[in-house]
C-alpha cells in the first residue's frame, strides 16, 4: 500500500501534465447489512461485478450458480440489472487486457431463498463477489436498509460535516478577480426579463379588452420603447432616469401620450384600472438597488419589449 501513496499520474496525456492525483489511505466504513430474512436476499452492487459460472465462463446472468448462493432463485420483478463490456488498457504491457463483461454498479438483484443463509455466508458476500476484486470490482451491499420497502428511503448519515471551506486568500489578485464578476448584470437582466413579461401580459390584457386584432398596432410602438432605451443609455443615475421617463411635460412616458394611455384591466379584478403610464410608473419604481443595476434593467427591459413588438408577441 505504501507504494501507492503520494502523487501519481493517471490516464492519458500524462506527459502534458494531465492526470496528476494525490493518493492517501483512509479508513472507510463498510456498509453494514440490513436485517437478514430467511426467505429473501437483496444485493445492491456498489461497483461493477464480473460473474463467472460453474464452468469458469464469464456471465452477465445473475443466478444462484453465478452468485455462489445455491438454492436461490432471482425474483426478476424486483431485480434491476444493467450490463456492459469493456477491455481495460494495460499501460505496462501497452495493450488491452481481457474483455470484461460485468453487471454495472447500481444494479439491484433480489433473490428468493429456499434455505436461510448462514452468518458466514453473509460475511463472505460482504467480502465481494466475482472476479477482479483487487481492481475494485465486486463490492455489494447485502440487504441495504434503504431498499427494504417499496420506495427507497433516505436517512441522514448523522455525520457532522467537518470539512471547512478554505477562506479567501489575502491576495490583491483575488480582489481583482472578484472585481471582474458580473453577477449584478445577470441579476438586472433576470429582473428585466420578468418585468418585460409582466408588462407584455398587461398590454395583451388591454388589447384583449379593447378587442384590437393582434395584427394591428396597439400600445407603445417599437420606436417609443426605443426612446425609453435611449434615455436609459444616456442616464447616469436612477433618479435622473426616473425623472426623464415620468416627470414633466417632456417625459418619455406621458399619461396622455399616444400608446401610453391605453387602459390596463386589473389582473385579478380587485385592483383599479390604470393607464399604461401609471402602471409602468409603479412597475419601474427604483428599488433599493445600485444605479447601474436599475439603469441596466431599464435598458434590457426596453430591448425585450422592442423584440416583442417586432415579433408581434404583444
Amino acid at each position, binding site marked *: 500500500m505504501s507504494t501507492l501513496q503520494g502523487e501519481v499520474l493517471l490516464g492519458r496525456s500524462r506527459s502534458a501534465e494531465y492526470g496528476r492525483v494525490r493518493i492517501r489511505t483512509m479508513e472507510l466504513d463498510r456498509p453494514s447489512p440490513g436485517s437478514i430474512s430467511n426467505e429473501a436476499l437483496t444485493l445492491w452492487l456498489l461497483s461493477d461485478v464480473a460473474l463467472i459460472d460453474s464452468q469458469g465462463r464469464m456471465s452477465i446472468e445473475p443466478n444462484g450458480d453465478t452468485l455462489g448462493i445455491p438454492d436461490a432463485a432471482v425474483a426478476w420483478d424486483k431485480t434491476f440489472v444493467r450490463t456492459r463490456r469493456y477491455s481495460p488498457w494495460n499501460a505496462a504491457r501497452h495493450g488491452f487486457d481481457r474483455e470484461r463483461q460485468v453487471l454495472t454498479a447500481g444494479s439491484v438483484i433480489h433473490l428468493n431463498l429456499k434455505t436461510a443463509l448462514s452468518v458466514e455466508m453473509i460475511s463472505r458476500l460482504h467480502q465481494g463477489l466475482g472476479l477482479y476484486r483487487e481492481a475494485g470490482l465486486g463490492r455489494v451491499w447485502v440487504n441495504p436498509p434503504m431498499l427494504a420497502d417499496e420506495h427507497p428511503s433516505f436517512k441522514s448519515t448523522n455525520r457532522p460535516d467537518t470539512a471547512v471551506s478554505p477562506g479567501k486568500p489575502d491576495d490583491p*489578485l483575488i*480582489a481583482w478577480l472578484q472585481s471582474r464578476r458580473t453577477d449584478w448584470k445577470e441579476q438586472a*437582466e433576470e429582473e428585466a426579463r420578468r418585468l418585460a413579461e409582466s408588462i407584455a401580459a398587461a398590454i395583451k390584457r388591454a388589447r384583449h379588452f379593447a378587442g384590437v386584432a393582434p395584427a394591428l398596432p396597439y400600445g407603445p410602438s417599437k420606436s417609443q420603447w426605443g426612446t425609453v432605451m435611449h434615455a436609459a*443609455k*444616456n442616464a447616469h443615475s436612477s433618479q435622473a432616469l426616473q425623472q426623464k421617463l415620468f416627470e414633466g411635460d417632456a417625459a418619455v412616458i406621458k399619461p396622455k401620450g399616444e400608446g401610453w394611455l391605453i387602459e390596463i384591466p386589473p389582473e385579478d379584478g380587485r385592483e383599479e384600472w390604470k393607464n399604461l403610464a401609471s402602471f409602468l410608473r409603479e412597475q419601474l419604481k427604483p428599488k433599493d438597488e445600485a444605479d447601474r443595476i436599475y439603469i441596466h434593467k431599464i435598458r*434590457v427591459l426596453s*430591448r425585450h419589449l422592442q423584440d416583442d413588438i417586432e415579433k408581434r408577441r404583444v
Partner: protein
Amino acid sequence: MQQSRLYIARLVLEADTALSINSGSPDGVFDTALVRDANNLPAIPGSSLAGVLRHLWRDEYGQADENSLFGFQAGSEGAASPLSISWGVLLNSKGNAAEGLILDKQYLQDPLYASVLQQMDTPVYRDRVRLGHKGAALDSGKFDRAVLPAGHRFALEIRLWAKPEEDDVLWRQLLALLIHPGFRLGGATRAGLGRMKLVSLHQQQFDMKNPQSRDAFLGVCRT
C-alpha cells in the same frame, strides 16, 4: 546569417478623432463594446495596429518585402514575422502608462482613468444607420457604435529583428507609415473615426553580437 540586429521604437499615439476598436462581444444593450485590457482601460491590440501597417505597406510599397516583414502562411509554406508590436496602453492624465495588471486602486483613480472606467457602464456612442443599395436606411438597420473620445493617448512598442548586414531602409519605411494620412485604427474609419496622431517616437537599434550594444539593450527600462 542570423537576425541579430534589433530595432526598437517606443511611441505615443493620440486619437485625433474618436477611436472605436471593438471587442466583438456586445452586452445585449449596446451593439458594440470597446476592447479593454485587464484593468478595464481601453487599449489598442497589437494585431490591430499590425494589420493596419501591413495594409498601408502594401498600398505604399507594393507586395515586395510584405511577407518577409509581416510573416505569412500559404499552405505548407510560411514564415514568422521578425516584427513584434505590443498592445497600446492608455496613458493617464500625467502621461504615465498603465502597464500590466494594476492592483493599486489609487492609480486607477486618476481623473482620465476614472472617466474611461465610468464609460464601462455608460459608454460614449454614436448612432449609426445601415444603408441599402438605394442609399436609404434599411429596416432594423439602426445600430450604435461605442467610441473612445478623441484626445486619449496610448504608448506602445514596435520591435524589428534584422540581419546585421541589412540596412535600415525597411525600418525607416515602416516608421514612416505612422504619419501616413491613411493611418487610422479601429472601425468606421470611413466615417471619420480612428485617425491617429504620432505624438512622440524614440528609437534605437542594438547589435546583439556587440557586447556593449547588448549591455545597452539590457539597460533599457522595461516598464
